[in-house]
């Protein structure tokens, strides 16, 4: 292999694919990145056998070839090189990758490319869904925050991806909160399809969308092989799907409310962030009081937190409050994480009882909802 590319492009690609490198694996080659040239392109790949990320680097290829080299060393090293042209060559005899950049000459020991697992590719006849990267990114951000991080119910570490008619739905729940986001599809899908995608893979897709903001991001699902593929510009991503069926979440979404507050999203977010300083020592508990307009023209939402050691804090936010006065307590971190991904100017909070889950939605936007269960004292 003999190929030349720019340090900047190679560094970017290495950083991206490094995220799929196995951190602890019995297979040494999985700690490496595969560099391969074919069809006049240099491709970088890494995988931990659950997730694989590939990246096409703009390059001038003189001679085809392939090698794998340790990911951490290569990525760290290339990032530190000066922003100039890098010449790469594989020494087949010593199984090493030679790099020349500016005044530096380097040889990095690798492992033969044949040792690297074959990465699955999307079948050409799998139906493809292409959506704007910004939409993918927002959907993924809004949903994956609710996915479980502990493995006690593996299926909950993923997000449900459901295709039905003209709609794509992403949903995730760690048992304490639930995020559901829907989007309109450009064309109608055939049969209803449901798969569970690891939240980690989706988060990488979100990152890829940020990297490649200019072209639609394509997704296809291979149901038989239980894999999902994404392509975002130079980046390709394959993930294994999670086994098991996602529990029916529809019954968790409160229907109707006793009290509904509509308030400024940014103000609410700031108030919860401030309350968190005092909630930290007391299991993150933040107490909300939804007070309908009585004597005054408008209602208010009080956001209060206290701890025996730190002290106490209360914020008073102007809000439109319908229904009965209600006191309800949440984990401030859950509330803040949800408010961080609601981009509408106003947010509504619906509550049925201090012992029932609360429902957050961006005002006037039916495509996103977030359910948080309460803390009871």
């Amino acid at each position: 292999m003999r190929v030349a590319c720019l340090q900047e492009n190679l560094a970017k690609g290495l950083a991206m694919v490094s995220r799929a490198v196995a951190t602890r694996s019995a297979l040494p080659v999985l700690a490496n990145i595969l560099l391969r040239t074919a069809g006049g392109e240099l491709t970088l790949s890494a995988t931990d056998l659950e997730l694989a990320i590939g990246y096409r680097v703009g390059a001038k290829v003189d001679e085809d070839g392939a090698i794998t080299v340790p990911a951490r060393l290569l990525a760290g090293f290339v990032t530190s090189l000066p922003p100039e042209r890098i010449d790469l060559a594989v020494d087949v005899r010593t199984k090493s990758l030679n790099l020349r950049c500016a005044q530096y000459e380097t040889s990095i020991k690798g492992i033969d490319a044949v040792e690297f697992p074959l990465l699955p590719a999307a079948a050409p006849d799998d139906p493809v869904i292409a959506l704007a990267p910004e939409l993918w990114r927002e959907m993924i951000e809004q949903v994956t925050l609710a996915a479980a991080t502990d493995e006690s119910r593996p299926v909950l570490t993923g997000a449900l991806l459901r295709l039905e008619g003209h709609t794509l739905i992403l949903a995730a729940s760690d048992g304490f909160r639930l995020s559901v986001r829907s989007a309109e599809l450009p064309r109608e899908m055939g049969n209803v399809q449901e798969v569970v995608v690891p939240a980690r893979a989706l988060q990488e897709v979100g990152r890829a969308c940020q990297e490649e903001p200019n072209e639609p991001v394509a997704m296809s699902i291979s149901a038989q092989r239980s894999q999902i593929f994404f392509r975002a510009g130079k980046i390709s991503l394959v993930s294994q799907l999670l086994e098991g069926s996602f529990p029916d979440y529809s019954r968790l979404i409160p229907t109707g409310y006793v009290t509904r507050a509509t308030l400024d999203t940014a103000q609410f977010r700031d108030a919860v962030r401030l309350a968190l300083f005092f909630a930290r020592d007391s299991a993150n508990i933040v107490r909300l009081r939804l007070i309908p307009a009585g004597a005054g023209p408008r209602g208010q939402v009080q956001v209060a937190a206290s701890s025996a050691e730190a002290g106490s804090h209360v914020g008073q936010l102007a809000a439109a409050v319908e229904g009965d006065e209600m006191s309800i307590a949440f984990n401030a971190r859950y509330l803040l994480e949800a408010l961080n991904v609601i981009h509408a100017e106003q947010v509504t909070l619906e509550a049925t009882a201090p012992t029932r889950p609360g429902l957050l939605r961006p005002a006037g936007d039916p495509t996103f909802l977030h359910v948080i269960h309460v803390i009871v004292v």
Partner: protein
Amino acid sequence: MSRTILHLDLDAFFCAVEELRDPALRGKAFAVGGQPETRGVVASCSYAARRHGVRSAMPMSRALRLCPGLLVVRPRHGAYHEASQQVMERLHALTELVEQISIDEAFLDVTALPEPGEAIARRLQARIRAELELPCSLGVASNKLVAKIATDVGKASARGDGPPSAILVVPPGSEAAFLAPLPARALWGVGPSTAERLAALGIATIGDIAAAPEAELVRAFGKNGYALHRHAQGLDDSPIVTFHEAKSMSREVTYARDVSDERALRRTLDELADDVAQQLHAAGKGGLTVKLKLRWPDFTTLTRQESLPEPACDAAAIRAAAHRLFDKTWERGKAVRLIGVGVSGLMDPLHQLGLWDRDWQREGRILEAVRELQKRYGADVVRRGAPE
């Protein structure tokens, strides 16, 4: 305006209570505490035993070597607790400003009372003697620090075979002079290691500390240097604390013989966790941190703790955390001398409800019903129990 603080200390308290039960013990050398063969220690010893060098906190086996005829009396904590309460009631009858610091010691702030401190002390001592037949000693001074040291000095200078029943008054203005000749060890916060380091600086008495430049003490002892310097001059403005909010709750046991059997250790863990849960329950609190304490036969002690996502008050959660800590700390077959379970980070118990809990809607209704009951009949009418 200068304050008047009394420090009261019941003389050989447990022994005095035992003598009430069995007057034949009067004048005899005896000690209340655990049996020597089960590694008991002396909890309290009679003045006759003290003359042989027996002291509290000493292993009982050693006390018996010092005083071969020593009678060992099994402690009856219920009786001591009851007697202590009766004493404290008499203190509270005098003023609200009572700070109980242990089962047999308390501070009183009597500044607001019309009589001089010494007269109040004499009356109190006489009353406790007459009504409860318990001897006590008192120190009277302008602050807690000097009052307590006054009691200690009064007791130490008492003559005769019986209890000291001392009263020592340190008039306002003479605190520093009173403290000056005493050994540095007599001061609050001066333990063996501080005393050693003071000695290395050529400081033997409290007067020496008072005379030392503050900067030198701060250099040697950091922040504590300031307090040391102030205290040595008899200055202390700490108030009478009438209410202590518990910061932690714990239970521990020392085994009569070292235990290395896993099942026995785990059984103890369960019992301790249940005890702590009961304490929490009684206080209406939950704890965010569970702590395990283990002591090996060579007396090295280690503690390990785990933070919980929400304050636990049920035995099951505390048990589970204690066992997890035990798994991480104990090696199979290792002998354990002492084992303890504690909970800290106390706060009102609360519970994050789960969306997938099969019966969350039912749980919600139960909670509402509980709340309604508590509103009507008080918080104690019903509480969350522990699933068995």
